[in-house]
């Protein structure tokens, strides 16, 4: 374990009240290794380790903690700082409906997350509307309709075979306004951040519905590519937050740190299963210990 490896370093380099440079160097090598093994993107690891070095250099050794515990505490605090606060909810709006745009790579869990959010809002006594704006994937509309039925939430859909996502989103927004829905959750097709046409489509949908929230849905098992995805989506739409899915798996989840670092946006929710109730507020402290292993 990381704490075990750090203990070994401090046993070998006996400390005298302050952490010296040699200790910090060896320790930072172990931290770097742990973060890479946890799938944190390399450039984020480098920036993060630099930050930890500044915090650790010359830090006083506390009497009640071993040097290894001290370092872990410093790293943990630094991680939680980047991962953000917990329980950052959805932004309120002055005029309903509050529009929430859901975006991300193929298979990341957007459609499921959209329905989970709708179920959550309904539980809070609100009146959400789902919009089926994935006009590409076979049976995507049907998938959202079935999930909407399960959640007891209406789904605005166009089954004519159109591929005009902007039109479908616009129609859903009109329906939401006309019928007094409090929230409109717009599910979109999975897309590669390097697909210019599809990224432009996402930008167009965002422009058409002017969301209060644009949430990037990211699979917790994502590796080094997290940085590329975060940068590209941030360049195309006004991201306001991240949903990290499949945290009920055993991936270390370093993508959380990469996403938080690059987007500088809060991770608002964690997907922890396939049921509509499997959506939790994100806990940065739990994520920090999970990443450190």
């Amino acid at each position, binding site marked *: 374990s990381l704490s075990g490896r750090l203990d070994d370093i401090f046993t070998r380099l006996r400390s005298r009240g302050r952490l010296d440079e040699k200790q910090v160097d060896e320790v930072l090598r172990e931290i770097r*290794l742990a973060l*890479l*093994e*946890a*799938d944190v*993107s*390399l450039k984020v690891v480098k920036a993060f380790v630099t930050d930890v070095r500044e915090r650790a250099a010359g830090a006083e050794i506390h009497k009640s903690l071993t040097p290894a515990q001290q370092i872990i505490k410093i790293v943990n605090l630094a991680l939680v700082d980047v991962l953000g606060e917990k329980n950052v909810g959805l932004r309120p709006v002055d005029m309903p409906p509050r529009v929430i745009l859901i975006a991300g*790579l*193929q*298979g*990341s*869990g957007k459609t499921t997350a959209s329905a989970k959010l709708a179920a959550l809002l309904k539980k809070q006594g609100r009146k959400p509307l789902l919009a089926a704006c994935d006009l*590409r*994937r*076979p*049976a*995507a509309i*049907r*998938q959202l309709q*079935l*999930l909407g039925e*399960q959640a007891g939430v209406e789904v605005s859909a166009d089954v004519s075979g159109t591929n005009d996502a902007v039109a479908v989103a616009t129609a859903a927004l009109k329906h939401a306004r006309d019928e007094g829905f409090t929230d409109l959750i717009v599910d979109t097709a999975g897309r*590669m*951040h*390097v697909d210019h046409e599809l990224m432009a489509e996402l930008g167009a949908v965002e422009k058409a519905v002017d969301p209060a929230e644009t949430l990037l849905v990211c*699979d917790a*098992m*994502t*590796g*080094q*590519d997290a940085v*590329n*995805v975060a940068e590209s989506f941030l360049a195309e739409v006004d991201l306001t937050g991240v949903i990290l899915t*499949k945290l*009920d*798996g*055993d*991936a*270390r989840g*370093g*993508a959380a740190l990469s996403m938080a670092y690059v987007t500088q946006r809060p991770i608002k929710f964690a997907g922890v299963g*396939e049921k509509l109730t499997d959506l939790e507020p994100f806990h940065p402290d739990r994520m920090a210990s999970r990443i450190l292993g």
Partner: protein
Amino acid sequence: DALRGTPTDETWEDLEAVLIQADIGVEVVTPIVERLRDRARTEKVTVAGDLRKLLAAELLDLFDRDRERALSFADVGTSVWLVVGVNGTGKTTTIGKLASDLKDHGRTVSLAAADTFRAAADEQLGVWAERAGAQLIKHQPGADPGAVAFDAVKNARAKGIDVLIVDTAGRLHNKAPLMDELAKVRRVIEKEGSVDEVLLVIDATAGQNGLVQARQFAESAGVTGIVLTKLDGTAKGGIAIAIEETLGLPIKLIGVGEGIEDLEPFVPDDFIAALLS
């Protein structure tokens, strides 16, 4: 570019970065770079461009060139392929692509909708069956996946269908009941004859967890080949190297898009060239 001019300390750092960023995994990368430094010393490499050739050769060495990468067919009767993997990796889409390819080669295909759990899973497979000209076998939502698979195998053998491909629900490998269910689906199919291929579908964007997935699925379902999907993004899928080297499981196919034609055989040389590009 890490590989221009004379190799310096920075060259080695940049090279290590390329490999790590490809998701090969720092544990696998470190010995590769060490071996490469030794070779560069003994072979007196003074041009970084030659380093690239040496690195490509090192990486290629990690792939067993004699490994069987073709898909397995039964000697007689219906071939049965089982497709497995964690949620959202591209199993159902890959099956559609496979069915179409088989059809193009004059084989009859049947698809079994044994994902009886996820919303609209059978409808999704149904669209692919239609596109590929394949028959679809499905039960009602919530049915026992083993029952669907069994029904599909009996049906396919009775009709003399060339290939039956069984779609299964996405499942996380750390969920024991779901992995037990998968093992049971395989046993049920084997009551009626051989399972000729168990394809594990892995998302190229996966980090080190991809190796854990491969290990667990191999243990529970007996994997015979891997499909690495979504290589049309920026992820390099370097976890494939760790999987081949550590587990000896062959990468057989790659997914390069959402269209029916977007499935290609896995070619180690091409994969490595793309990884280093």
